[in-house]
Structures are given as structure tokens and as C-alpha cells.
């Protein structure tokens, strides 16, 4: 639209075209060629709700940006080659030692390139943060029910990002060709070879011959700097486009519905907040990189298959499969001359795949069990979906125990314990722990639901102790402010699970569609899913509660105004007009 022709007046004086401003002219020039105004008009004012937990995914996004920036710096000096050279650089302890060009160039980046070590460490810390923030973002999404319809596919994209990010981390960890990364690649070679029948073929294909060969580093390099970042970028773009399309979820509250989004617009508020957050994430990465040493490759020395070091661990995100591998009893069997190494195959190939598939399917499993096909844009508090919350806590517990197993040697020396006993304990704990965690979390959530109802019906505890004329003591409860009461009750009632008969037949004597053994299982799961959940109080119950408290207030009225001073600042009411009563 050409704004220069718009009238400057709607009064009696003649309209004159105002002089076009310079920025307007540039914008017009660009819009005439790119047609962005329509898009910008719609999206620059896009509203995002405000909550700290909605910014966790942003940590992942910004650490990815840091990874791209520092990664480009590193590619300028890194030589992805396994050609052997004799080191003659600055680091004295390795001078004269034969090593691969990859390791020599890593040393060069660390000691001879200005700012190189800082960039290396920033890259590594940002990688750790990237995967970690994806995981806490995932937890937030699941705990609040943001994975429900219509966002299931965005959950799937997020899971793919998580696994690709992990692979990206592993390939990066392998590139410097130091003792740890070589040990990691050696372990990966073993995992591949543990695949029944085709394992050795796959290994020879990947390494271009027998391990280690000369091709693995150049190949991993291409995967690390081209293939995976490309996929990650594409998936991040898809993830964010879907976010814009679905609009952000929000917490329930007065004025917030399934059909609106209450918050601040992108420009200027969220652009500033998100842009500022980028600098904070960048700053945290730089702070970690400048204060804490990470992967001191010069101490590890070049990889050599004859060497290994105590404390050989992968980076943290690969720690849990490593832990499963460490505590797996050594079982293998032989069929027709083929050895199946269950001790490697189960913990490293089967378990992570299984966990990943479970993770991918979680939204679909939940929807199948609950039968909920509605769209959800209002979030649930974790306590209001006790089974879901407990399920994720159980998975987290399992993850944490496998994680601990991955550091069993460090635990042993730091706790002065026996590594064998830690291993035996964890073998049982990875099965028992999640079950215990599930039960405890579920009951905990239900108790919190009860607490909410208690507050709704009987008011909140003021902390004011009243003494009656007879000398009895009671704590005074006051009703919640309406907005808080609304927020607590703005949730759906769980559906009532009716009785179910497997052999239920319709009028023609044919079983109703979808009713059979699977439907029976689904019914049983649905019953378990909702069992013992506490529903929000009904209107009648609320009124009864209010009536009761009014009665209580009447009884306490003579004592009103004699409350201990200061209790009016209990955080439940506006205190603009309040002052200490003395």
C-alpha cells in the first residue's frame, strides 16, 4: 500500500499527501518486490503467553545458534583427516608424537589459533546445553499436556530433533580423534558388530574396512557439519512453523480460553525478550567455556587402539545407554555358528530404540487410552493428570538410574563404594525404581488435587489463630479471590469410565465395532488412567462450602479486626490500600 497517497486530514481543511519517510520508502520498495507486508502484518503482532517454562525450548534454539557460530569458526582450522603426522606444535608434552591430522589440528586450534580453545570449549558446552535444554523442554511439554491434539506431530518432530541432536553430539565428540573419542568410536564399532548377522558387514561399510581404517573421521565430519545440521535446521524450521500455526499453549486463567491466546505481541515485547535471551544463553556458554575446562584433549593424547583411560565415558546424553551396557550381565548365545551378544545388543541396540519408539508414541498412546479427540490449547497442571505425570517421572527415574550406572566407576571412587555392589544394586533398581516412582508420584499428585479442592471449598489458611470464648483455638480460613478460584477450577472433569462388557452386542447380535480384546485392554487402561483422580468440586459443593464459611465468619465476627497485624499481607489479595493497622 502506498501510504504517501493517504489523506493527512479528515477535517474541513484540504488533505495533503505527507512526505514519505525514508524507512517507509525502503519498506515499500521491499514490499513491492517481496510482498512481505501481509505476512508481517499478521505475524509481527503475534501474541505469545508469558511463562518461564515456555522459554525452555528457546534455550535449545539459541544454543543451536551458538553451535552454528562456533562450529563455523572451528571448521576453518580443523583437518578431518586420519593421515599420520608428527606433532611439532606448541604443546610440549606431545611434541614428536605421531598422531592423526585431525588430532594435530585440534591441538592447533587449542594452542595456536587465537581464541581457538575458547571456541572449542564454547562449542562443546553449547552442545551439552543443546541436548539438555531439548530434554527439559520435552519434559515441560509432556508434564503440562502440550503434546495433546493438535500438537502430536510437533512432538514427533521434537523427538527427532532430540535423537538427531544426540547423534550430532556423538559425531562431534568423535572428531578430534583423542583417546576418549577414539574409545567411543571403538565402542560404536562394537555395538554395530553386535547386530545379528549383518553387524560385521555394517561395520566394514561404515569404517571402509577393518576398524579403525582411514575413512571414519572424514565420513563423520561430513555427517557432523553437513548432513545432521541440515536436517536439524529443517526440523527446527518445521517445529517453529507448526508452533506459529498452532499458536502457543497457555495456562488457564480468567479471560483465557481454548480459542484465544493472552499474552504479549512478538514486536516489540517478545522480540526483545527472545533476543535478549539469546545473549544470555550465549553469555552462559561463554562463561562456562572461559571458566571450566571441557574435554582437555591434550591430556588424553591421540587415539591409539592399545590405550584406554579410566573414566572413559561418553558425553552425558549418551551416558544412559552406556550405563545399561555397564550393568548388563554378560549373556551370549550361539545359533548355527552365529554368536548373538545379548549383553551388547539388548542394552545398546534394543533398549534405546525401544525407549525412543515409546517416546515418539506417548501422545498417541495417551490419546488412545483416554479416547480424547478434542483440541487442547489450555495447559494442565501436572497434578491434574496424575497418571501421565507419574508415567514420565517413572521414565525419568529409569533414565536417571541408567545414567548413574554410566558413571558407576566415578560413583565408586567418590563414594568409596564397591563398583560391583553399585552394579548389582542398579540391576535391580532400574526395574524397581520406576515402579516406586510411579506409585509415589501418582499419589502425590492426587494429594495435591485434594489440597486444591480443600482450598476451594474451605478457603486458604490465613495463618491467623483465633481463640474462642471457651478457650478453643482454630485457624481462620478465608475464601480464595475469584480469579484464583477460577484458575483452579478451569479444568475439565475427567470422563466417567463406564462398565464395559466384552461381549456387548448390538441389536443384530453382532459385536459392536472396535469391541474385542483390544477394546477390553483399552478399557482397563482407561480405568487405571483415571482411577482415584480427584475431580474439581461441583457448583453445589462450592456453594455449600461458601455457605459454611460464611457461617463461620459470622461466628468469628466479634473477633474481626483483632487479628494479629500484618496478616493482611498474606499474598492472596491486593494490598494497595492496606497499611499496618496497629
Amino acid at each position, binding site marked *: 500500500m502506498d501510504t504517501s497517497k493517504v489523506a493527512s486530514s479528515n477535517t474541513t481543511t484540504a488533505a495533503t499527501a505527507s512526505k514519505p519517510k525514508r524507512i517507509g520508502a525502503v519498506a515499500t520498495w521491499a514490499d513491492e518486490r517481496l510482498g512481505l507486508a501481509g505476512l508481517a502484518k499478521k505475524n509481527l503482532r503475534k501474541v505469545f503467553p*508469558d511463562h*518461564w517454562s*515456555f*522459554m*525452555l525450548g*528457546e*534455550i535449545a534454539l539459541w544454543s543451536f545458534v551458538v553451535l552454528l557460530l562456533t562450529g563455523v569458526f572451528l571448521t576453518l582450522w580443523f583437518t578431518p583427516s586420519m593421515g599420520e603426522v608428527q606433532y611439532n606444535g606448541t604443546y*610440549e*608434552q606431545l*611434541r*614428536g*608424537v605421531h598422531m592423526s591430522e585431525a588430532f594435530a589440528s585440534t591441538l592447533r586450534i*587449542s594452542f595456536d589459533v587465537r581464541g581457538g*580453545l575458547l571456541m572449542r*570449549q564454547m562449542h562443546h*558446552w553449547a552442545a*551439552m546445553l543443546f541436548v*539438555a*535444554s531439548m530434554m527439559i523442554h520435552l519434559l515441560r511439554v509432556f508434564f503440562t499436556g502440550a503434546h495433546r491434539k493438535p500438537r502430536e506431530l510437533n512432538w514427533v518432530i521434537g523427538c527427532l530433533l532430540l535423537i538427531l541432536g544426540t547423534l550430532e553430539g556423538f559425531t562431534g565428540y568423535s572428531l578430534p580423534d583423542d*583417546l*576418549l573419542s577414539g574409545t567411543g568410536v571403538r565402542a560404536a564399532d562394537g555395538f554395530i558388530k553386535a547386530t545379528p548377522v549383518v553387524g560385521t558387514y555394517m561395520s566394514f561399510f561404515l569404517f571402509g574396512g577393518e576398524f579403525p581404517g582411514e575413512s571414519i573421521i572424514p565420513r563423520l565430519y561430513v555427517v557432523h557439519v553437513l548432513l545432521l545440521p541440515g536436517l536439524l535446521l529443517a526440523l527446527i524450521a518445521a517445529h517453529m512453523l507448526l508452533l506459529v500455526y498452532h499458536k502457543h499453549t497457555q495456562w488457564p486463567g480468567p479471560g483465557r480460553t481454548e480459542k484465544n491466546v493472552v499474552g*504479549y505481541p512478538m514486536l516489540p*515485547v517478545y522480540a526483545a525478550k527472545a533476543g*535478549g*535471551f539469546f545473549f*544470555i*544463553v550465549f553469555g*552462559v556458554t561463554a562463561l*562456562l567455556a*572461559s571458566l*571450566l*575446562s*571441557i*574435554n*582437555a584433549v*591434550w*591430556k*588424553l*593424547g591421540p587415539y*591409539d587402539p592399545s590405550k*584406554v*583411560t*579410566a*573414566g*572413559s*565415558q561418553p*558425553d*552425558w546424553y549418551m*551416558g544412559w545407554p552406556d550405563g545399561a551396557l555397564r550393568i548388563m550381565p554378560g549373556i551370549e548365545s550361539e545359533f548355527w555358528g552365529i554368536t548373538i551378544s545379548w549383553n551388547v545388543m539388548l542394552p545398546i541396540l534394543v533398549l534405546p530404540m525401544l525407549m525412543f519408539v515409546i517416546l515418539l508414541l506417548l501422545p498417541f498412546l495417551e490419546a488412545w487410552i483416554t479416547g480424547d479427540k478434542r483440541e487442547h490449547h489450555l495447559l494442565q497442571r501436572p497434578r491434574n493428570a496424575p497418571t501421565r505425570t507419574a508415567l514420565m517421572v517413572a521414565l525419568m527415574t529409569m533414565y536417571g538410574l541408567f545414567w548413574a550406572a554410566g*558413571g558407576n566407576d*566415578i560413583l*565408586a*571412587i567418590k563414594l*568409596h*563404594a*564397591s*563398583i*560391583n*555392589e553399585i552394579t548389582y544394586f542398579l540391576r535391580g533398581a532400574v526395574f524397581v525404581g520406576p515402579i516406586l516412582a510411579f506409585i509415589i508420584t501418582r499419589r502425590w499428585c492426587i494429594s495435591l488435587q485434594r489440597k486444591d479442592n480443600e482450598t476451594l471449598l474451605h478457603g486458604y489458611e490465613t495463618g491467623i489463630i483465633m481463640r474462642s470464648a471457651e478457650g478453643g483455638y482454630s485457624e481462620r480460613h478465608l475464601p480464595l479471590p475469584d480469579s484464583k478460584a477460577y484458575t483452579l477450577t478451569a479444568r475439565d472433569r475427567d470422563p466417567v469410565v463406564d462398565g464395559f462388557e466384552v461381549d456387548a452386542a448390538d441389536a443384530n447380535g453382532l459385536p459392536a465395532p472396535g469391541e474385542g480384546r483390544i477394546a477390553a485392554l483399552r478399557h482397563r487402561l482407561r480405568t487405571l488412567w483415571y482411577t482415584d483422580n480427584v475431580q474439581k468440586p461441583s457448583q453445589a459443593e462450592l456453594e455449600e462450602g461458601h455457605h459454611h464459611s460464611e457461617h463461620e465468619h459470622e461466628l468469628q465476627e466479634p473477633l474481626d479486626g483483632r487479628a494479629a497485624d500484618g496478616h493482611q499481607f498474606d499474598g492472596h489479595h491486593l494490598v*494497595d490500600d492496606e497499611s499496618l493497622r496497629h
Partner: protein
Amino acid sequence: MRLLNRSAGRLSRHRRSPLAGLLVILAGLLLTGGIFTAVANTTAQADQTASNEELVAKGRALFLVSCSFCHGQNGEGVSTENGNQLGPSLVGVGAAAADFQLSTGRMPMAQPGAQVPSKPEAFDDDEIAALSAYVASLGPGPAIPDESDYSIEGLSDEERQAAIARGGQIFLTNCTACHNFQGSGGAMPRGGYAPALHETSAKNIYQALLTGPQNMPNFTNGNLSPEEKRDVIAYLYSLRDMPEYGGFGLGGLGPVPEGMAAWLFGIGLCVGAAVWIAAHTTRSNKKKVDAA
């Protein structure tokens, strides 16, 4: 003769010089001292033997009080009824083994367990010397190494640098599997552990290599020559002198503490910042709204 006379005459000219008396006294002292050392050398050796015997006797007295309960009254070791060893025989372990165990405080042992921990030593240097001499007297074994065995002081700068680089490779090949790439220690089966080497003295490292205490294998001079042992020690000492190039080293234990730092500090700071950003939102007025 004339020549002699002439030079004697020249010398004689200085006989009244103020320095003459001093020089004569010095010459006399040198002569008597020289003769005494030449003659007394044999007696000194005899003294040393005598003092070694005294040392062994003193060591034996200490041994009977502090060690014989487990190692036997003559260091022959004590076996329990079911065939376990209460304390191993010390015949032939050598002074190096005794000195290592005593000077790192591992012996006398406080209690039996998966592994004997290092602790403040129970004996002073003289007593350790006496006990080591006594153990050495039980049978031939490695002697306490001399400082020249493990010091690279005598080498030129280039030789030193080469020794450190060589020692690093030997260390990474032979020692890191248990002691970790930086000598931070590692876990061994059933509660055992390879101790950290950050503060172990050069002498103790050399002795440990030589005698293989507890779980540690024995690196004889056949499979790791004295020079190679020296180089390993030089490498370990060079790590101590080296600045932490990348910042605080997190205990030098590899990726586990790094992951913890990423979660605790990295994610902690970022989430803290997110909470802060979400808690502070826009104001329409630049001035702070007055609460009152």
C-alpha cells in the same frame, strides 16, 4: 738447584707479608685433614656397617611392636586357619616396598578391607629408615631408589622435553587404564581403586612401579627400564606444573563431572534467566510505578 734456590728466595721475600701466616695455617689444615680422611676412610666404612646393624636392630624392635602381629615375628607372614593371609611374608620385598608402604602411611594398616588407604604416616623418617633396613635384611629385594634415579635435573632442556613426551606416552599406554589420563585415579573391582597421583611424591611413584603394591602390577626394570620410569615421573610432574589451559579442570575425571556442570550451572543459569525474563514484563511508563 739454583732455580730452586731462586724460587725459594722469591717465596722467602714474602715471609713477612700479612697473608703468610694465614696461608701457612691453611696449608697445614689441608695436609692434616687430607691425611686424616685417607686413613679414617676404612674406619668410617666399619662404622657404617656397625650403624646398619644398629639400624636393623632398631628396625627389628619397632617391627616386633608394630608389624609382627600380622607379618610374623621374623617377617615370615601369618596365615589364618582357612588359608587367608593375615599379612604377607616380607622376605625379599626389599627396602623400597617397606619404605613405600610406611612413608605413604598405608602401613601400619588400620583395618583389613578392600584396599589399604593412604593416610598420615605413623613413623618419622628415622624409624621408617630403620624398619626399611630391617625388611631389607630379611632377603634381597629392591632398594630405596636414590633421587638420581627419578630426577631429570641432569638433562639438557631438549632431553628433558623428549623425556617428558616419552613418559607421557608410556603413562598413557601403561597407567591410564587404572589411574585415569590425568592421574586422577579410577575404580577397581570390589571396592578397590587406583589412587590419584596428583600429590604422590616422585620417590613413592618410583617405588610403586618397582614393587607393585596391592592391586598394582609390578613394572620390573625388564619391562620398564629405570629411564622409562623416570620419564613417567617427569611427565606426571610436568602435568602438575602445567597451567590449566581450559580453566578449572573439574577434578580431571572426564565427561561425568562435565555433564554435571552442564546441567547444574549451564541449565541452572539459563532456566534462572528464563524465570527472570518471564517475571519482568513491559511497562508502559518509563518511571517505576510507586507502590504507595
